[in-house]
């Protein structure tokens, strides 16, 4: 299978700030998650892929073409940017339709495609309202609609799940799966691993502008599992909870916090901890009132992995 995106020694700087260091990576067709902590270079990479920026060094091809200023390529690309920006004077329908018209569609065709795309993202009831009255999630879905409306071969979405409520998140994931079933490749970025994990088996991890790992979710998970996960807990009786948790095999350390009722647990197997925790806590009668796992934040894991 040929690569849809091929980057070789790709670099891009903003003055003295490194956006992307020396990235070499290939994306195969299908859904790929581009994962990395904030500031890893995900957005820069995506802007290079859609031709908004030019590489400072290295080579990048998307669907076999160089992206910057490539009008032929833009016919086949859909880009959902991260920034919450729309033409505020327009309705959702006008916004998507007018952008479609730039792609050469007649007004009637563009309107039909716009309506279909907005229905697909669940905005059928709001499409004739001005976008400046939309909620954050509706604005996000409008950006998605303009990215998919023209039936692109590749959709590139920068943090598309941010700001969506759980229902919209599920719908959006279904939308991406539907696009993939229709033969459209999708690259989505996220700084939250499990967000992407729900959607695809294929993942690219970048950190500080470089490729850190690439492969299936399982492989990446295995890599990550070498690093202990931290869980912050709040309980009425933290000592009793600590005593009950300590015998679990995967527990590495337990520290009582400075604030009353708080404790921090480090575990080598976060999944096993999640399955065992409720039963152990209930049996101990520790009165747990707070649970925060840092699994959602990749920053620590990335720092660990890069040494």
């Amino acid at each position, binding site marked *: 299978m040929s690569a849809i995106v091929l980057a070789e020694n790709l670099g891009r700087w*903003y003055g003295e700030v490194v956006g992307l260091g020396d990235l070499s990576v290939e994306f195969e067709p299908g859904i790929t998650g581009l994962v990395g902590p904030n500031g890893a270079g995900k*957005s820069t990479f995506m802007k290079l892929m*859609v*031709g*908004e*920026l*030019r590489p400072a060094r290295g080579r990048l091809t998307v669907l076999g073409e160089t992206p*910057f*200023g490539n*009008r*032929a390529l*833009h*016919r086949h*690309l859909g*880009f959902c*940017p*991260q*920034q919450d*920006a*729309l*033409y*505020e*004077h327009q309705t959702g329908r006008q916004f998507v339709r*007018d*952008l479609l*018209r*730039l*792609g*050469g569609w007649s007004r009637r065709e563009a309107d039909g495609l716009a309506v279909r795309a907005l229905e697909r993202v669940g905005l059928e009831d709001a499409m004739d309202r001005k976008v400046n009255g939309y909620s954050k999630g509706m604005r996000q879905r409008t950006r998605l609609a*303009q990215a998919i409306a023209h039936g692109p071969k590749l959709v590139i979405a920068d943090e598309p799940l941010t700001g969506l409520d759980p229902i919209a998140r599920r719908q959006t994931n279904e939308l991406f799966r539907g696009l993939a079933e229709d033969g459209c490749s999708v690259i989505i970025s996220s700084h939250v691993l499990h967000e992407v994990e729900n959607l695809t088996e294929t993942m690219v991890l970048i950190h500080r502008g470089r490729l850190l790992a690439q492969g299936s979710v399982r492989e990446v998970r295995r890599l990550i599992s070498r690093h202990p996960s931290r869980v912050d807990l709040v309980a009425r009786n933290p000592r009793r909870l600590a005593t009950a948790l300590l015998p679990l095999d995967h527990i590495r350390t337990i520290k009582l916090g400075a604030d009353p009722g708080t404790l921090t647990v480090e575990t080598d197997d976060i999944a096993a901890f999640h399955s065992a925790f409720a039963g152990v806590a209930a049996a101990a009668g520790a009165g747990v009132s707070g649970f925060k796992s840092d699994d959602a934040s990749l920053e620590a894991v990335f720092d660990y992995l890069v040494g």
Partner: protein
Amino acid sequence: MNLITELPRATWLIFRMHLAATAVSRRALAGILFAAIPPLFAFLALNIGGDGDMGERVFMYLGVLVLLQVVAPALGVFLGIGAIADETEARTITYPFTRPIPRASVFLGRWLASLLVLSVLLLASGAGVAAITMRASSPPSPEAVQGLVGATLLAGVLYSLGAAVIGVIFKRGQVIALGYAFAFEVMLANIPGSAQKLSLQFYLRSLFVGDDGANWRSLEIFEPSKFLDASASSERLMVTAAILLAIGCITVTRKQFVLSS
């Protein structure tokens, strides 16, 4: 699709997409207030303690000192600068730049939408001054009115285009454009000598001075100047506009616009 057919088509679509928003933008609303100043001054000059027979002089003074030298450059800068700068500031430029259209069409379409709004404002302002002063007992000649209004409209084209180009090149272009229009230009245009030829104002004034310079001589405070004839002046202004257009289109095609996340 080739560039020759795609550029006008995409320019037209971008123009239509942004015309209504430009017309009701804060820039345009401020422009309405600014454009109302010359007719207001004309009314005050002729009706508050005026002797009513200074129609021509009031028209010429307001036309040159206020309309051509202040209102047209100010409105040109305010409306022109937003062509690309507003898109980058609002971070919406990603959308047209990731569509299969020439990037130059975004610059052209948005500038033309600004120009149309600007032209309406300048025309209304010039026509207002003309209508008020023509009711006085010593009205300006129709040729003078035509010349000055024409020069003002052309001033709108050039200043807005210059500002639009500055807005493409520089991040905070408004200060630079205003500095050019109100410091550099005004100084060059009003210092006696051939340095005037480096200013747009010189060529704009050349459009309405009249064959014998009579219109200009009515502005007694100025040194007599030797102007170009109107056609030579128009030609040079058009060449300037074409150069600015080319710079704007090439820059917007080649430049990378880095948006904050």
